[in-house]
């Protein structure tokens, strides 16, 4: 087992599972949190993530296959998907993938799932197969509330605005086009409106 990445929440290892290359995601205890809180967070997120990975896949959103879940150790063994995180791709490619990302988010929302951590680092793109995967469902929730879906969209907008400032406008437009293909134009308009409501609530936001 080799450490691939020390993520924010979990350590990611690469190993093998029944002869196939696999990713092992372990949510290790964090010393800075009180033990009760730490245990609660790790348990909840591991079970949620594993359930949602499978559920999303059944809806047609490509996600890694889950092989095994160990709730005791807060570990998930899953398919090792090839490719690179969208965050690291050249600007043009990110713009090119935006509509597809938007559509995947739309499919989740349409089915009452909020991803909870929509960033460009939670999409993996495999150029060879032209496959786009969605990962990291630890903060996902079952919710149909438009407000929650708007929180998702606001986060990806914030990330585009901060990490991908140069292509923000174009990428956001494409993302919304893809989103509308899944949820319809009426719903998209509603969510976009709610996104500005949330932004307006931000500290010192310009109130229009």
């Amino acid at each position, binding site marked *: 087992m080799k450490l691939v*990445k*020390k*993520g*924010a*929440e979990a350590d990611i290892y690469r190993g093998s599972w029944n002869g196939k290359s696999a990713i092992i995601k372990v949510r290790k205890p*964090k*010393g*800075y*949190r*009180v033990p*009760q*809180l730490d245990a*609660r*967070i790790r348990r909840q997120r591991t079970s949620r993530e594993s359930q949602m990975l499978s559920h999303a896949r059944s809806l047609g959103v490509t996600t890694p296959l889950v092989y095994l879940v160990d709730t005791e150790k807060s570990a998930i063994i899953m398919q090792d998907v090839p490719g690179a995180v969208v*965050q690291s791709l050249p600007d043009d490619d990110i713009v090119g993938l935006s509509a597809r990302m938007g559509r995947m988010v739309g499919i989740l929302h349409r089915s009452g799932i909020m991803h*909870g*951590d*929509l*960033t460009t*680092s939670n999409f993996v793109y495999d150029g060879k197969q032209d496959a786009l995967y969605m990962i990291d469902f630890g*903060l996902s929730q079952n919710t149909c509330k438009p407000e929650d879906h708007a*929180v998702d969209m606001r*986060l990806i907008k*914030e*990330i585009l*605005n*901060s*990490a991908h*400032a*140069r292509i923000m406008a174009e990428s956001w437009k494409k993302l919304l086009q893809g989103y509308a293909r899944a949820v319809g134009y009426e719903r998209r308009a509603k969510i976009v409106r709610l996104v500005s409501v*949330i932004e307006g*609530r*931000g*500290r*010192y*936001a*310009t*109130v229009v």
Partner: protein
Amino acid sequence: MAGMTTTTTTTTTAPRSGAAAARKKRMIGLGIESTAHTFSCAIMEKTGYDRGRILSDVRHIYRPDDGEGIHPREASRHHVEYAPEVLAQCLAESKTSVADIDLISYAAGPGLGPCLRVGAVVARSLASFHGIPIYPVNHAIGHIELGKLLTGAKNPLVLLVSGGHTMLLAFLDRQWRVFGETLDITLGQLLDQFGRALGLASPCGRIIEEMAQQQSNDRQPGATPAGRGNGTGESYGGGVDGVDDGSSGGKSTKRTVRHRQQQQLVPPRYVPLPYTVKGNDVSFSGLLSAAKSAAKSDKYSACFSLQETAFAMIGEAVERALSFTGKRELMVVGGVAANKRLSAMLSEVCRRHSCRFFVVPLKYAGDCGSQICWTGLLESNVKSGAAMSDTFVTQSWRLDTVRVEY
């Protein structure tokens, strides 16, 4: 120091000569801070492009009654009353006269309107009477720039935690970009509003920190100081900016200490409270309500649990932002940076990500004139002073809209 005023007549070659000259010489700046409860003046010296030294930093802090928050009008009256004294003391301590000052900067926002106007009026009066260039400065940028100067951080992820802000920022393409922030109240407001519900004196951060370490006995309901404020009123939460001040809430602190001695001691226990992280963002309002109800049975445990939960949320948001941006430095600035438990948690986060950890020195964590002064001095590298008609104040002025040209 007297020699400095004569250098203004040097080099007049290029169109931006003012800026070019400014880069070379030694500049003396006066900074005026009055965004919330603190009125402060500071004098700093800049040599070269970005080397600086604080010559004096004098503050006077408005104190609301125990259990109450900042009243903007009362705070601005306080500022008007103490402005001359603070300014005079600041000049005296730095052994500077107004004639030595090369530029004046003031906090133009974000903050409370009535308070901001006091600082702006003082700055404008001095600038126009003595013919000194004037620079309106963003208060939040000031926290960051002073932090960078004092800690030596080069390219950090910045955690700005105060009464007015809870934000994670990184610099990209001439602007500070937001990588996560609170969706409702700030960390400072959370602590202050909770503290006020317990009837503590604002700013409450330091007292809550002490109470969280103390031991509790929930069978003594009399241990709760009578609460007056409901904590839902105006709450710039100013409070926590300035937790470093020794005089803060002396009365309540004494009271809690006495109660502790009377009590049979039991360690504070962790009460489960709502933990809300949404991607890189956090939300504190649910936590506030739950902590207030938990405080009814045991306020020490509530303080402990509130700190543990809120700071763990910040810790997670920081981890997410660190891993997303790949930064190798974390710098914490703002009033809540003075909290030792928060620092301890964040330094552990940094160890995990092999990242260098910087905290702004305690004395300069809270609002102070130096942060304004230093930002003005940096701006003078590339800009000449603002026209008097542009010396505005803006209550809502997000720092991610400021172009940083220096």
